[in-house]
């Protein structure tokens, strides 16, 4: 297997990250992100590239990569569906959405479809509690207020290569109840 490497453009980005901090070690998380965006995961050879680039012990980078859940420790599907089932999502049907997706794609949470298109993960609170149930696509966009129909639509769109757009959840306006008796 060919030696992994960053392009000059990526190295420039890494220099900018390093410039934010007084130590290069502090750049570990962000450089792991750069690597994951490039390779789609941070398997050991990718971790080694990060360690060599920052001149840090491989053990340190491995320690960080294995601590944080968003780093993929192995190759994942093209689209990773992170389905929240935590408290508010649990109350609003998060498990139903998770099981529906599992049935639709024929895999369980933690698995990847044979064609390499989809992985499903059950995840902890993503901070979208008012828009439950919800999921996040490959560490990116949030898909809120899921129904089985909306989930099916999402799968269809992803199969066609269309990522959902960012959905702005506005601050709801309070009804002015000026003359209301209450």
């Amino acid at each position, binding site marked *: 297997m060919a030696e992994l490497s960053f392009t000059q453009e990526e190295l420039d980005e890494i220099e900018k990250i390093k410039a934010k*901090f007084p130590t290069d070690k502090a750049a570990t998380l962000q450089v792991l992100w750069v690597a994951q965006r490039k390779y789609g995961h941070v398997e050991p050879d990718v971790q080694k590239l990060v360690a060599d680039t920052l001149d840090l012990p491989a053990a340190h980078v491995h320690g960080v990569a294995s601590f944080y*859940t*968003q*780093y993929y420790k192995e190759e994942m599907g093209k689209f990773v569906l992170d389905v929240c089932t935590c408290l508010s999502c649990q*109350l609003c049907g998060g498990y139903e959405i998770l099981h529906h997706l599992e049935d639709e794609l024929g895999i369980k949470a933690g698995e990847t479809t044979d064609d390499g298109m989809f992985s499903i993960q059950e995840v902890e609170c993503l901070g979208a509690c008012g828009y439950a149930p919800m999921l996040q696509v490959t560490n990116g966009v949030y898909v809120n207020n899921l129904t089985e129909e909306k989930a099916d639509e999402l799968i269809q769109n992803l199969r066609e290569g269309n990522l959902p757009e960012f959905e702005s959840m506005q*601050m709801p306006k309070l009804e002015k109840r000026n003359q209301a008796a209450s």
Partner: protein
Amino acid sequence: MANDWRSFEPLLIPDIPNLEKIDVYEENGGYEALRKILNDRDKWSRENVTNEVKQANIRGRGGAGFNAGLKWSFMPKPDGGPRYLACNGDESEPGTFKDRKIFEFNPHLFIEGALIAAYAMTVDTIYVYIRGEYISWVDMLQEAVDDAYEKGYLGKDIMGKGIDIEMHLTYGAGAYICGEETSMLESLEGKRGYPRVKPPFPAQKGLWGRPTTINNIETLANVPLVINNGAEWFGNIGAEGHPGPVLYGISGHVNKPGVYELPSGVPVMDLINEVAGGMRGGKDLKALIPGGSSTPVLRADQLEGVTMNADSLRDAGSMMGTAGMVVMDEDTDMVDVLWRIAHFYHHESCGQCTPCRDGTGWLEKILLKIKNGEGEVKDLDLLLDLTTQMEGRTICALADAAAWPVRHTINRFRDEFEARCKKSVHAVA
């Protein structure tokens, strides 16, 4: 007074279109608090700014509720070396989804607040740490920060007043524990998010061993309001002893979940029935978790007259936390809910301290057994005993946060838990 919440006009996120754009923010009085300070540094000395904020009593909105100005005053005198402000946008406590509203709808209010805090504490570098899942909001805040640099509100010689303050954004990669302040510092230093032993406190030894203050995003967004209008004005908003606007995140079984900005101290039942549009499907209210998953659950019959501020919630037997309110209707299975909360804390325990690493695992395991109808009544007492062996025996408060919901949910819904347990052998015979 809290009961005039119906006429309250939002201050943190006012209803002004495109307020996230720096021009619109400036047109609406943005960066005037900072300008006021830098234009009259005799009146607004670093000490006076700190005192004004201390007097305003902005209680930390990240969950602990500590007076922000008082926290600032713990910073030692400058010795010429670096000093840091670390802004906590990790926002990971289940039920909490408010700080992202500031990043999206009024990021400059936060930036201005952070700048004033940095000035008051003689800080030259601000770090903003946002949870990695919020990448969409990281990008939004980055755009605002870039604009603030371009306009001369950040960087060298701010507003031509000879003050230099840098602001750097960074983000995590999925770890609830990084919302704990010293864990966040570890993560900022590029390490696993292991909480640090205190003392030394961050004000003495924080980032890279230097004096550091950690404030929540919403807390800092309140600061320009205090400088513009005065501590006394701020103190008159909402509840006595816990004043100011609050971003209430309401989720669960209500008709209109979402984040609402209202004064502190709004009656809980008004928030559920009026603000959030009442219970979904006309069901009855069963329980409320008032401030994120670690705050003790309250039964519907415990909510009479309770308001959303520290004192009232403490008297009721819970806490304000992050004001992330999780509303549960009559059909809610409290055993399932508690098991899910226990699963969360087990998953998120960093593993440093044995009482937490093992304790959270046992809580989850025993609750799963009960959930599956295989538990016994004595397991409930085992769970309660476990909570006392975890609480207060670890480096950080995650063990406490895991223990409280178990203790209070079992105590407050004991019948429901017992009904799920197997009958004893004797009773069956």
